[in-house]
């Protein structure tokens, strides 16, 4: 509850918002350039950068007073990674006979 915690400056928040809008514009532009197999990679990479910025700075995970919060957030994404990677490890290898 100290005055220095959690308080993000307005200018920084707005700048970050503009940055996120720019990244959205870049995603749209990149979708129309033929990058072959890398089109979805680039799109998801930009989405992940945007999501990470939101989680760290808008949701205040960076500099959170409770380490426990960080643990919960990281465990959430960890289990999501298990869900996605093991499911895909199954479906992507079914044709290997």
């Amino acid at each position, binding site marked *: *509850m*100290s*005055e*220095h*915690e*959690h*308080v*993000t400056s*307005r200018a920084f*928040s*707005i700048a*970050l*918002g503009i940055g*996120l*809008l720019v990244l*959205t*514009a870049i*995603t*749209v532009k990149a*979708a*129309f*350039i*033929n*990058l072959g197999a890398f*089109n*979805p990679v680039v*799109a*998801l990479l*930009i*989405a992940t950068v*945007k*999501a990470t910025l*939101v*989680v760290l700075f*808008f*949701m205040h995970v960076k500099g959170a*007073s*409770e380490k*426990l*919060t960080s643990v*919960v*957030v990281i*465990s*959430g*994404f960890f*289990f*999501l990674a298990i*869900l*996605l990677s093991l*499911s*895909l490890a199954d*479906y*992507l290898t079914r044709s290997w006979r």
Partner: protein
Amino acid sequence: MSDSHATAVDTAESHPQLRHHFANMEQQKNTASLGMWLFLVTEIMFFGGLFCAYLIYRLMHFNAFAAASQQLDIKWGAFNTAVLLVSSVTVVLAVRAAQDGNRKQLVGYLVITVLLGLTFLGVKAIEYKEKFEKHHVPGPTFAFTNTFDDNGKQIPVNPKEAELFFSLYFAMTGMHALHMIIGCGLFSVLAVLAWKGHYSPGYYTPIENAGLYWHLVDIIWIYLFPLLYLISRHS
């Protein structure tokens, strides 16, 4: 965290908003925040299941997914992404206003957030209406006649596979829209309570936790937009 800053009156152990089972306001706030994050993790897993289904079917029926995806309007999708990102900024500014104890600004930012949320839902309604008109809603009336242009090669698309894409489209954007409706309701209540002066620099946990929810819904859309709208747009 650091007790050295416990100068504010609000951190006292006699705050009117302090429930009797907490030692002080900081402990109460941290507990609420942890509970909110645990809820958000269940939300991540819930949407994760939808994303996982989407990924598997997209890999299995890529051409149909690309052809069906190209029926979505990028302009509306990008516009809605921008609307949600701006609303996330207004949420941050609302939390900041609550920390500063600026009641008018707080109410203002909460109202702007609700309006942006309603704008998003309005655009979604326009898009859904178009889907009904084009018979792209899964069900007995579903019709899809299209080919996927794979660099000059016209590949006919199986309508059943395209229907799968639209099923996932409606399940994912529909679930997301439901979360937006709940978010708009939540922020409307908060705006009224903020107007009545329920929140102070020592107690704004509901604003902060509702903000966390709003940001998560924003993040889900950040992924939905490229996954649903931007498949193979370059050809």
